[in-house]
């Protein structure tokens, strides 16, 4: 039998382990999403976006970033302890990351702005690609974390219920 083939007992022990071991995988995925979000906004604000967007949009994006990071951090702590409802929160903020690709980066991509009579490209191809990658990875991490947490929480609930029935 291959070493990687899991027996029914292995799966049962894995479920039982969840009673005592923190859901680190989901939590770490949230941190990964946070990290790539940081990469994204550092990249974005290094561009000349202030001359292209209205200031209120910049302000809104900064506030969204702060709120996003707060929510993801709180969710990371909650999923660590198998809180099922935070799967929905992570799913929503994950989808929002995808939406964000079409808000600033896509609109800034190859757009030009005239600053002191010089025409500048707000976001070149390479920068745009990086921004999409950062937001994409961040979104993927959050959505995967949401799905994984939901699956694990459901399995744990069923396992605990079965233990209760046995007892």
């Amino acid at each position, binding site marked *: 039998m291959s070493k990687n083939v899991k027996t029914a007992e292995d799966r049962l*022990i894995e479920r039982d*382990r969840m009673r*005592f071991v923190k859901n680190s995988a989901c939590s770490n995925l949230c941190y990964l999403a946070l990290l790539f979000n940081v990469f994204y906004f550092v990249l974005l604000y290094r561009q000349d976006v202030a001359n292209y967007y209205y200031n209120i949009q910049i302000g809104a994006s900064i506030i969204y970033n702060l709120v996003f990071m707060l929510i993801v951090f709180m969710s990371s702590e909650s999923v660590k302890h198998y809180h099922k409802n935070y799967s929905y929160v992570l799913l929503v903020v994950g989808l929002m990351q995808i939406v964000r690709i079409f808000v600033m980066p896509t609109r800034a991509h190859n757009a030009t702005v005239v600053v002191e009579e010089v025409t500048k490209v707000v976001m070149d191809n390479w920068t745009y690609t990086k921004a999409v990658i950062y937001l994409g990875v961040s979104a993927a991490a959050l959505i995967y974390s949401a799905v994984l947490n939901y699956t694990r929480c459901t399995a744990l609930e069923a396992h605990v219920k079965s233990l209760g029935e046995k007892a």
Partner: protein
Amino acid sequence: MAELSLQHIDKIYDNNVQAVFDFNLDVKDGELIVLVGPSGCGKSTTLRMVAGLEDISNGHLLLDGKDITQTPAKDRDMAMVFQNYALYGHMTIYENMAFSLTLRKENPNVIHKKVLAAAEILGLTSQLNKKPAQLSGGQRQRVAMGRSIVRNPKVFLFDEPLSNLDAKLRGATRREILLLHKRLQATMLYVTHDQTEALTLADRIVCMSMGHVQQVGTPLELYDSPDNVFVASFIGLPPMNFYDVKVVGNELQGNGIKVALTPEEKKTLAGYEGKEITLGVRPENFTEGEGFKVSVTNNENLGMNTLVYGTGEGGVKVTAKLKGWKNYKVGDTASFGILRKHFFDKETTNAIRGDK
């Protein structure tokens, strides 16, 4: 299977202070050995040398016949339980117990099985998700033991594990350690300065003083046939009474003391006619009757027993542990007979056992 052999072990520190002198001991598989002695006698140093936390200056340490004198602590396959538990405060009990196995990168499922099994043995199953700060001292010490059990070591080492617990908890945890030993049948070395722990736990006791082994034997041997004055005085509570006496004919005579010898005792002291010896009498070997006449200085009722303290002729001090509830008043005259005597050579302080 784990047999431990300590052969001519010395511990000499860099400042030339010698803490342990020529320590010899063979520990059988599954045996619980208790190292007992007053503070500074070298018992913890000996344990730390066995664990590999201290270098062995001279001698050899063998585990199952293999010389491990120079083997690093991590490779000795021994687990140590400390007085202060040494638990990680930020980890749950489960994580604390699993920690050493996680470091060894063992399969998480195997770790889980081992932790649950150890928790079941120690009655910690319902506490696994708690942090150490949420547990009582006794429970924390059980966690420390659990952390050792999951490793399945060849030898368990306990360094005064009950010293931080209150008296009631100490008794309960002591019984748990005994049950644990019976269940695991593991080789254990246990250090304590508490003779009650030593007498109740040990298969054999090693009594130490000033870095020297004074006696190795079963608890009964140490209590009933102490090899010397030190062991006689250390084992037993209250301690043994000692009197300087001279062997004169069929009796022992001393300052205010005159005790008759039985023919057997006379035979034991055959070579000591006219010489001074030390007479030892355990408090519980005194009984109300003809013999020592003392003026009572204190009467302590312990429920089942009464401790009577008195002073005899010539200022001889007597501590007697009498059965039942007694009501001596200070200044009363009490008379005690002796049920059992111990004799010690005055010069060497060794026990006199005659030709036996």
